[in-house]
């Protein structure tokens, strides 16, 4: 407890007054001769003890009255954090893109700044202050603690939104690391919107690194019922665009979404999305030229605009025509060689299935890709046809099977195959070699039988088994050979979720997609690789930079990186929306925060209309003069009652 007017504490000396009066009132007794002292002694023994207790109680109450009166003038303050005059305050201001959310016409970041300024006004002038902004990186604003509040305020104004995610644990740890050699008592004030995603519960890290002497105060500038929707992700393949639109509100929302290609509105859609659910917008694009297009998908405006627009490069390819040739047709589709393949290919191509007997008569020139599934043998004309197909730039894919004669393949069409089909092997397991890492799909498949493919010198192994033997080989002539059959006779891979991924992976070779398209988050930096000539970089606003080793992706949009060899690389730069990113504004349960800082003092304050009072209470305690006035009244009544005990 401290006092606002401590000078009045001198009034405590007045406590001696009733004591002195009490002592002085002990007059010298007058002598009276009395007949018999027995009754006096008896009366005294019965009364004096009570009287003395009452008297001492009265003395105590009178002393207390004076103490309370002194305290009332001195204005006592009770403290929740015991802090010394040397306490340094470190502000951590969240400037992740969720802080761009508009609340009552004001950006959260502005609220955060105003809250910090309000708090600054309450901080004692002798206390030093440092300021850092944070998202998933920590940036110093005023890194050396200072008492110069004017400087601090001007620096705070310079804080802008970083289009990154929040990582509070990282921010706290970085600050602790920064001040690890500074033994001054610290008070960390975290100003954030309490969005759940910012509190990735790295409890161990906190438990190890946070000194117990650190006091943590979290100021909540968030909103309990945030409404937000976002374009979470966009993927393109061939002529197809797949966008994910998410609703992060607490109620069902109708969201209109538009696709812009090369600045022109191309398509729009309308979704009804349930709370905390996503909707996939997948469609084939028509009527545009093959090649690179700069696009974005945009939803209708909401309170958080950063995630409403998703920029991407669309390397458009018309849907190829694919011919599936079944070498062992069955009455039942499931047992057929092409059923699962056709299902997997339908998304990316126009597929036609024929029996091998129809092959010679089919107009093959109109197809880009031909799949030969369990075709046992090829006659001379057929071999010639295959040769012509290759020379005309078609893609040939061979799925072996039980009808396939290894000998005939290795002799008759050996000249076009990228491998020798060696022998049968039992069992096997697909490895994740070359498969997209992001996909958390089980690659376990029950492989009973497979061919051992021995690659030729010009062959490229695209996929492998876990024993390093090839699963899929590619020759320079665009001939592809699988080691398993396309039906379920050799393995159950065709019915596994990995199968469409394998086919998509294969398909990317058919699309001649040699243009390099990268994805980057806003705030990341492009860095030239060592030895590379400085490329020319065209930012989304058309500004050309051609003399810098590195460039910061400041804007959302498509950056073009033009190399001297006329090769162009594209970078889709968007806010970090991976996962739910900052778009999901659902707040963390404060109990979780308490668990996180269980060894430290933790104060949580909501930035509402009573914020000033509450933060003052946590930092410097609250004035309790009113309670002392009440106490004074109570003791005054008690004193009156005790003093007039006899009369009553």
């Amino acid at each position, binding site marked *: 407890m401290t006092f606002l007017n401590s000078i009045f504490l001198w009034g405590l000396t007045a406590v001696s007054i009733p004591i002195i009066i009490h002592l002085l009132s002990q007059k010298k007794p007058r002598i*009276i001769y009395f007949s018999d002292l027995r009754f006096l002694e*008896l009366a005294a023994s019965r009364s004096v003890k009570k009287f003395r207790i009452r008297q001492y109680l009265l003395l105590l109450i009178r002393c207390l009255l004076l103490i309370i009166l002194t305290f009332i003038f001195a204005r006592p303050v009770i403290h929740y954090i015991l802090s010394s005059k040397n306490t340094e305050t470190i502000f951590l201001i969240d400037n992740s893109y969720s802080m761009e959310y508009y609340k009552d016409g004001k950006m959260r970041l502005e609220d955060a700044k105003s809250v910090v300024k309000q708090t600054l006004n309450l901080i004692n002038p002798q206390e030093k202050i440092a300021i850092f902004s944070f998202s998933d990186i920590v940036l110093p604003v005023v890194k050396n603690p200072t008492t110069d509040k004017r400087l601090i305020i001007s620096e705070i104004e310079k804080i802008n939104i970083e289009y990154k995610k929040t990582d509070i644990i990282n921010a706290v740890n970085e600050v602790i690391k920064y001040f690890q050699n500074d033994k001054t008592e610290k008070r960390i004030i975290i100003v954030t919107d309490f969005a759940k995603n910012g509190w990735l519960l790295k409890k161990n890290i906190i438990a190890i690194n946070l000194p117990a002497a650190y006091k943590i105060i979290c100021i909540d500038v968030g909103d309990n019922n945030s409404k937000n929707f976002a374009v979470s992700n966009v993927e393109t393949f061939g002529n197809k665009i797949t966008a994910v639109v998410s609703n992060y509100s607490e109620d069902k929302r109708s969201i209109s979404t538009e696709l812009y290609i090369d600045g022109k509105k191309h398509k729009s859609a309308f979704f009804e999305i349930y709370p905390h659910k996503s909707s996939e917008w997948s469609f084939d694009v028509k009527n545009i030229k093959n090649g690179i297009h700069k696009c974005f998908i945009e939803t209708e405006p909401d309170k958080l605009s950063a995630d409403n627009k998703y920029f991407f490069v669309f390397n458009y390819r018309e849907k190829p025509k694919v011919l599936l040739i079944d070498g062992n047709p069955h009455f039942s589709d499931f047992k057929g060689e092409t059923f699962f393949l056709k299902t997997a290919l339908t998304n990316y191509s126009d597929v036609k299935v024929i029996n091998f007997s129809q092959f010679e008569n089919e107009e093959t020139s109109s197809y880009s890709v031909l799949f030969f599934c369990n075709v046992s043998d090829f006659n001379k004309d057929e071999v010639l046809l295959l040769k012509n197909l290759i020379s005309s730039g078609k893609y040939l894919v061979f799925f072996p099977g039980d009808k396939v004669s290894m000998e005939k393949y290795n002799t008759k069409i050996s000249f076009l195959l990228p491998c020798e089909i060696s022998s049968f092997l039992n069992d096997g397991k697909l490895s994740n070699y070359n498969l997209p890492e992001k996909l958390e799909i089980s690659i376990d498949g029950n492989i009973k039988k497979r061919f051992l493919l021995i690659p030729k010198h010009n062959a490229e192994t695209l996929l492998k088994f876990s024993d390093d033997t090839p699963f899929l080989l590619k020759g320079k002539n665009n001939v592809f050979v699988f080691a398993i059959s396309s039906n379920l006779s050799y393995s159950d891979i065709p019915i596994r979720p990995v199968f469409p991924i394998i086919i998509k992976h294969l398909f990317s070779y058919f699309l001649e997609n040699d243009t390099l398209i990268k994805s980057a988050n806003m705030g990341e930096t492009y860095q030239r690789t060592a030895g590379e000539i400085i490329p020319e970089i065209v930012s989304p606003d058309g500004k050309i930079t051609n003399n810098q080793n590195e460039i910061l992706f400041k804007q959302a949009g498509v950056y073009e990186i033009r190399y001297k060899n006329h090769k162009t690389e594209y970078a889709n730069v968007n806010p970090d929306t991976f996962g739910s990113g900052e778009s999901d504004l659902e707040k963390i349960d404060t109990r979780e925060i308490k668990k996180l800082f269980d060894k430290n003092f933790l104060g949580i304050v909501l930035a509402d209309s009573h914020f000033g009072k509450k933060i003052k209470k946590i930092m410097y305690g609250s004035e309790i003069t009113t309670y002392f006035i009440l106490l004074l009244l109570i003791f005054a009544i008690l004193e009156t009652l005790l003093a007039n005990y006899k009369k009553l």
Partner: protein
Amino acid sequence: MKSYLDPLTIAKISTMSLKAKYVVEGFISGLHTSKFKGHSLEFAQHREYSFGDEMKHLDWKVFGKSDRFFVKQYEEETNLKAYILLDVSGSMGYKSDGISKLEYGSYIAAALSYLMIKQGDAVGLAVYDTEIKKNIPPRASLNHLSIIFDELSKTSSGGETDISKILYDFSKKLKKRTLIILISDLFDEQEKLIRAVKNYRFAKNEIIVFHIMDKTEENLDINGNVFFKSLENEKFLITEADIIKKEYQKIISEFIDKYKSEFRRADIDYSYFNTSSPLDLSLTNYLSKREKLQT
């Protein structure tokens, strides 16, 4: 003598008759009734005539020989034999204002002596504290009254009290039924004292208790911090009189009430006197009560 026989007091007492409640052993004449009425009387002694003696008791033969008036006295002639036991312990010397308890008691003793002798009763006086300091045996003559008065005027207070012991000792000396008049502040061990007083009733004696107290002893009208010193011994007490007043009054009230109730239960006459109340009024009230008892 004058100081003890205040004319107003005497005048008031003279109008009433002190009648013995119980018939004592011996011959009774005058106002007193006796179960031995008509029994022959035995000569005891000659006593010089004094004012008030009846002429019929004059011994004319002795007058013829000595030319002086003598009255014949018989054992039976003493209607009532009474002993006044006056407490002269230190506590009796206490007075807040006016007269002390001892003075007050002496007045009562003198008045009663006078009254009883006037009625032909024999009165003796014993003054005591822890022991009997002076014992004047009962006589019925007016001369004897002056002896009693002399002794009463000489008495002074001092020393501690042991009333119960005195009563026990004294009872052993009594051979005939006697009226004992106990004048005291009764500041003694209460139970013991009550037992001692009751002992007289069991011995077929009559005992009248005059309990005398000062008004300050009763009400403790003293304020402030007081160093109380005992009048009987070296004991002292320092206390705030105001604080203990209420409790003290309660204790004293219980003390007096206990005597009243215990003596009433044992058919013992008990009268409480406060030295602030008029002496004559106290006596008159008492005698009236006796008279009522008689009728």
